[in-house]
């Protein structure tokens, strides 16, 4: 896999402590796929984490649930772990990959063959 095609897809950092939580949330915020948030009570929510505010009192994340509905706000303090469970929609479609598929289409070959 080329550098521009590396992804966090499938990453499970396990239970995160307070020091690590901010970093994992930043990565989830930057991730263009769904994540699964595990709460302190064991409950899980899968969806797209589109916002976070570490400076708010209390700090929170906002998620659009994959199942649909309005955005859900979850305080940092309730988050035990975040798993990167959804497909990374920004990965695997690099410019190089597009050029390969274009060339393949022109020659009538497979888009994955190059």
């Amino acid at each position: 896999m080329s550098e521009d095609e590396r992804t966090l897809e499938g990453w499970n950092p396990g239970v995160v402590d307070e020091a690590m939580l901010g970093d994992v949330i930043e990565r989830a915020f930057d991730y263009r796929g769904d994540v699964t948030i595990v709460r302190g009570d064991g409950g899980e929510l899968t969806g797209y984490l589109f916002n976070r505010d570490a400076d708010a009192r209390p700090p929170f994340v906002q998620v659009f649930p994959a199942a649909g509905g309005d955005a859900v706000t979850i305080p940092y303090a309730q988050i035990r772990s975040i798993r990167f469970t959804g497909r990374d929609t920004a990965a695997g479609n690099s410019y190089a990959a597009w050029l390969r598929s274009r060339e393949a289409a022109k020659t009538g070959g497979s888009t994955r063959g190059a």
Partner: protein
Amino acid sequence: MSVPLSQMWTVATYVLQQRLRRNRRYPLVLMLEPLFRCNLACAGCGKIQYPGHVLRKHLTVEQCLAAVEECGAPMVSIPGGEPLMYPEIGPLVAELVKRRKYVYLCTNAILLKEKLEEGLFAPSKYLSFSVHMDGLREEHDEAVCRDGVYDQAIEGIREALRRGFRVTTNTTLFDGASAMRMQMFFDEMMDLGVEGMMLSPGYSYSKAPDQEHFLRRQKTHELFSKMLSNPKPRWKFNQSPLFLQFLMGKWDFECTPWGNPTFNIFGWQRPCYLLQEGYAKTFKELMETTRWEGYGHKSGNDKCKDCMVHCGYEPTAVNYAFTSWKGFKATVEATLTGRL
């Protein structure tokens, strides 16, 4: 330049009112993104890489209008995603026109002919279709990663013009663009009869597939100087001449990141149309709590280092034109003579 007088007047009086109120930061154009869904997947675009359930979401007309009222900018640009895929685009545009907002509906025009035939829009001086055209057929189809789109866009433009609509084009330029080919493109757009063209260098979105072909500052100056140093009088640009001169390296402007604030399904985007560093619930919160000093060319922020994109620098150029004699004189000169 081709910006209609009534629009220029609206913008000029708006800017002067803001200055008289001693308002240091104010928006010029609201970037209203009702959806992220698109019928293209261009290599230079970082706007559409989301899970399916996010792409299926869109703002309601009421949410859009509330954002427009809250922001107060005299112009509203509707990008996306592809706004012609937004199911409420007709009613939304009608409401904005009723409110006398100058609307730029930014479209790839694939659906334009079809939507015009459906009678979704009525011609108005407040409504302009801003058609995405990244050059002549070869360059455009390559930029949008699909053959045949250029011809579809031309068909859409012709139909819109035939029906009496205002049509402009918006062009993003990437590394490797040929000044000569772009000049041929300007001729072609003028032959078609578009009202004016908008140009901007591309921005290297971190989520865009193509990271290799974004222009850096020096190359931007060289390309725009080559393209525009001796412009044909028939070329009309629907943007501030000072912004074009900035791209040519004639002005040293700083970014105005709050000039084109962005609202979408996530809220008010911090800090600008291009960077996604978080979202505010309200426009007031966006303006008052964003650390603006951390953005712009001189801030030292790596993400802003090479950016010369219109959404940050055109507001600076417009403000300069209406708030300094030097800027005003240069704008009048360029407008009257057509020289840049």
